[in-house]
């Protein structure tokens, strides 16, 4: 085995950049769609058909909204990282930050596929529409939907996303700067989502 083939083996095969950065998004979309379909159909299986039709429509519209908002906040994360790096006087091209965020998005893809797997193994019980429409104040979405792992899985994958993003950025900039950029971006996204949620829950 010559040095050239050894080098190829050591580096693995190279994918075109657009495939490498686009793959996690495409696979996430498929995983998220599978998880949504299995969970939703299972939740509304015992609901009368005419009520279920409206509930399913509302559930799919909500799921699509949540999915697209996640994409929007990924952009905000990348933008915040870039602004922090700019402030720290790092001359990193925004496209490289976007690429790091795209590659770190594998963590979210894992979130969607693990979720789909867990829902397929143990589908949530059919929902009582009365409980669904008038949930008690103490019960959160996890409890109502009967998926107790939902938040924990999301938190674990979000941490994995941030760590991966840091590791990828640290290859191009000083590790401390990469850490500060990821922390700033995480704080920005957390602040904006929490503030809007607080308003929506009428904490005003």
């Amino acid at each position, binding site marked *: 085995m010559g040095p050239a083939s050894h080098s190829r083996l050591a580096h693995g095969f190279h994918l075109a950049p657009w495939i490498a950065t686009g793959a996690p998004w495409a696979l996430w979309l498929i995983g998220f769609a599978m998880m949504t379909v299995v969970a939703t159909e299972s939740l509304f299986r015992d609901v009368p058909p005419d009520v279920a039709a*409206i509930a399913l429509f509302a559930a799919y519209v909500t799921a699509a*909204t949540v999915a*697209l*908002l996640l994409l*929007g906040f990924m*952009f905000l994360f990348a933008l915040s990282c870039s602004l922090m790096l700019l402030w720290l006087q790092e001359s990193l091209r925004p496209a490289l930050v976007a690429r790091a965020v795209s590659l770190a998005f594998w963590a979210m893809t894992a979130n969607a596929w693990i979720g789909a797997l867990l829902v397929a193994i143990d589908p949530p019980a059919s929902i009582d*529409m009365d409980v669904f429409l008038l949930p008690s104040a103490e019960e959160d979405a996890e409890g109502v939907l009967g998926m107790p792992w939902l938040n924990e899985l999301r938190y674990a994958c979000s941490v994995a996303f941030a760590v991966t993003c840091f590791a990828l950025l640290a290859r191009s900039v000083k590790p401390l700067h990469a850490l500060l950029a990821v922390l700033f971006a995480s704080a920005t996204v957390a602040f904006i989502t929490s*503030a809007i949620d607080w*308003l929506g829950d009428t904490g005003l």
Partner: protein
Amino acid sequence: MDHKSWIRNLAIALALWAGGAMLGFGFTTQVAPTSHEALPKAAAADAATTSGPVGGKLYFGILGRNLAVYGWLLCGLVSLGISTVVVTLFNGVHLGQTIALAATAGAPATSIARLLLPHGVLEVSAFLVAAAVGILGLRLGRAWLSNEVRLGAQCRQLARLWPVASLGAVALAFAAGIETYVTVPLAESRGLGR
């Protein structure tokens, strides 16, 4: 933002919102149960109830939820316009669904219009203006990704839109007042619940 951009963005926002409303209305009228017996007990009870928060608590509840939607719409500025497009569509679908459910439950169109229009005109106008501003996020995102030096200038240009954004929030405060002190008592007097 120049005059032409305002008109274009408002037209896009209106098209998204109206498209969502038609989708929600069209789908729900096709599948909605035609009798109240088919509705879940909780939904029927909720529609019939006249109890719940009143006065200041109701006002701040409505205002908080509307400001949250307003916030999501403006977030389009920093999310490539995605949150704006999604929330405008979602809002339209939700409104279309609500109108369709009220219509299939037998509420006359004039009653629905009387309940929705007084606060709806202000509320939807504020949302559409916020959406028109949020859509600019796409331009900002493109400038950022292409590493344009004009990014800073564009940010400063956007910052000048703060009076419009503030005006929208004020309009929502008025709309919440109308909804609390005009729409809800009107709905209760007609036995339509909330």
